[in-house]
């Protein structure tokens, strides 16, 4: 059995359990349900028992596919504002489509809204070409004015008597429960179209998005691909309008894609991640609005709750993404700081031992505190880090004394070696004065890698003394080091 199916039995059991559950009241409208238990509601929502809920979830699926795929290209092409503008510019088209048929006829609204969106895009590029205004200004201007026209038209429609205009406000804030069969067909059709085009034309789309000029130079139809992308985008926005609303469409378009951008370095992974995130945000958002409805007995719009979920995902990625997430960066910073403290403490002990010519194994804590000009407690705190890492042990015969373990001594020699090699390199090769090199070596000693140290050593022709006349621990010292060997070597170095 492949690992993929290993989890099937419990999953199947869950499904069977869901369907076998006695269904509670098939309400005609979701808002008629009054359930309080979140678990029950979760099961009910995602068990696909209600036709209305099936419509919602299917709508979220299609919308997620559209926005995940197209949103990714919008984000990497730095066209986020274009998406935002397009989603507001479609509103007058919705109103015109409605006026044309005097009802919420999906096809008329689709046509009107798409036309309005394309008109908005054309206006932006026309303004850009014929004035000195840059794209952001043109976009902002078109966004606001088209949206204003849309609001005015819809307010006018609401004043017309004898017209069923219920649900017009869904175009502002979104109501997934209002999705009808025709809406779903259009959403599904657009999702299939987007998927086919992105899969078939993935490489040309990638090349034109990354480097337009190069793409044109190899004969790719860069303009044509751009227009295909814009047309798909307009369609995707229009068909999602009912579920998310004009105000929140751009959030669902941009946020999942930006989240995916933080999480990956490959475009095809970004496309898949963004799609998954957009679907999840849509479904979770719809569910939250469904739960909320039971609580406040008022139709809650789905757009804002979907956008909130998408934003929540982004926040999680921003904090916890493995390489750039804030939390991981902070933890890495902390562990680096700790490492530097440990290494500096080791070095101080080594120095103290060195000045005793390695005749004593233990070093009194009081003496270390005196050398470092800090209090006894401060030194003890640092030393405890060493003990915790197994690099040293305490003994309190005549006051506290610290003893390095063999690992501790190796590690200490390594740090001292890095420090002294770097000092020598700076004085010999970079013409630093001997009294200028210490501060720099203090930083570099912690970050030199094994290979760099060996290269440095080869380059300096295996030196034995640093610029201050101190012995540089050899590679063997850092690997295996009985103390008496060090003591013998120290004798040899003495002139």
């Amino acid at each position: 059995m492949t690992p993929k199916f290993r989890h099937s039995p419990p999953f199947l059991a869950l499904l069977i359990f869901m369907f076998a559950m006695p269904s509670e009241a098939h309400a005609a409208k979701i808002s008629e349900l009054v359930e309080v238990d979140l678990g029950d509601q979760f099961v009910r929502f995602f068990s696909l028992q209600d036709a209305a809920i099936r419509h919602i979830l299917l709508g979220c699926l299609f919308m997620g596919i559209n926005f995940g795929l197209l949103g990714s290209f919008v984000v990497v092409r730095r066209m986020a504002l274009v998406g935002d503008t397009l989603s507001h510019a479609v509103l007058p088209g919705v109103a015109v489509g409605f006026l044309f048929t005097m009802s919420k006829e999906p096809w008329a609204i689709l046509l009107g809204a798409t036309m309005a969106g394309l008109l908005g895009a054309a206006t932006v590029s026309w303004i850009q070409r014929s004035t000195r205004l840059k794209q952001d200004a043109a976009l902002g201007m078109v966004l606001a004015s088209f949206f204003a026209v849309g609001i005015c038209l819809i307010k006018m429609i609401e004043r017309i008597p004898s017209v069923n205009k219920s649900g017009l406000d869904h175009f502002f804030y979104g109501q997934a429960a209002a999705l009808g069969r025709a809406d779903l067909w259009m959403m599904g059709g657009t999702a299939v179209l987007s998927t086919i085009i992105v899969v078939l034309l993935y490489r040309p789309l990638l090349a034109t998005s990354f480097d337009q000029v190069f793409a044109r130079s190899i004969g790719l139809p860069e303009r044509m691909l751009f227009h295909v992308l814009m047309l798909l985008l307009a369609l995707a926005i229009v068909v999602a309008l009912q579920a998310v609303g004009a105000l929140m469409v751009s959030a669902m378009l941009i946020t999942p894609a930006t989240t995916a951008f933080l999480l990956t370095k490959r475009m095809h992974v970004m496309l898949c991640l963004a799609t998954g995130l957009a679907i999840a945000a849509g479904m979770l958002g719809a569910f939250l609005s469904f739960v909320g409805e039971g609580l406040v007995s008022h139709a809650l719009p789905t757009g804002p709750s979907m956008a909130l979920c998408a934003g929540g995902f982004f926040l999680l990625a921003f904090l916890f993404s493995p390489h750039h997430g804030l939390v991981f960066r902070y933890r890495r910073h902390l562990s680096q700081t700790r490492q530097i403290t440990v290494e500096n403490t080791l070095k101080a002990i080594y120095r103290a031992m060195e000045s005793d010519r390695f005749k004593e194994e233990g070093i009194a804590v009081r003496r270390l505190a005196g050398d470092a000009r800090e209090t006894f407690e401060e030194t003890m705190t640092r030393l405890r880090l060493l003990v915790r890492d197994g690099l040293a042990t305490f003994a309190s015969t005549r006051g506290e004394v610290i003893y390095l373990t063999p690992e501790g001594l190796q590690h200490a020699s390594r740090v001292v070696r890095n420090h002294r090699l770097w000092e020598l390199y700076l004085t010999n090769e970079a013409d630093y004065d001997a009294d200028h090199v210490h501060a720099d070596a203090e930083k570099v000693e912690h970050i030199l890698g094994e290979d760099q140290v060996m290269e440095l050593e080869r380059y300096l022709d295996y030196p034995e003394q640093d610029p201050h006349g101190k012995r540089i621990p050899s590679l063997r010292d850092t690997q295996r080091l009985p103390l008496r060997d060090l003591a013998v070597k120290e004798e040899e170095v003495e002139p």
Partner: protein
Amino acid sequence: MTDPTSPSQEIVLETHDLTVAYDKKPVLYGIDVSIAPGQLVGIMGPNGAGKSTLIKAIMGLLEPAGGWIQIFGESNKSQRKRVAYVPQRREVDWDFPVTVMDVVLMGRYGHLGLFKRPGKRDRDIAMEALEKVNMIPYAGRQISNLSGGQQQRVFLARALAQESDLYLMDEPFVGVDAATESTIIDLLQDLRSQGKTILVVHHDLPTARQYFDSLILLNMRLVAYGPVEEVFQEELLQRAYGGRLTILSEVADATGEKSKVDLSAKR
């Protein structure tokens, strides 16, 4: 891989009375050059002399306002598979979510057309190109984690993967480290020894002398074109770099203004 059907004496690139305009404002006037194969040609001139514009026009990225361009005796757009273009490094977004290998493979897209996927042969060619610029260890790295010199080498590898006969490079030596500069120049000489022709927009006068076989000196007009020894003369350089040709640029500015006036009148 030179095309065996094309005789070696064929002219690679010829422009005749080529005039190119940006926003109706002429940037290049009446350029005539004719370049024989197997040469390393430097394109030099002050800022705003139209160096990049010349390259973009040859690539067919800008429509000439007058004159014509022929590559291997045919129209420039029909010869796209035989011409590789290396844009300026700063023209793209280096945070784009692609790896070094992804970018180099794009060099094969011109041969693949719209729908075909790159096969093993394409990958081999891309790998070979990466090897030539010493970038194999970085093949799987995202392009945002590269130094300027490494970015330039990625662009070069992408051009190599195109397997072209004519290479057009826009300032490949700007902002790269010494190691990259010597890698690039070795590579260019290697390409030349295979009979390919390379046009390079270049800024640095002292190195131009040692890098190139011939020079195109531009300052909106063609100031000089010929072997380096002939072009590298005090008087010619003075003419190219000693300020813009005053009258010509004034006329150009006036034409630009006029076109703007026309447009506003239409509105």
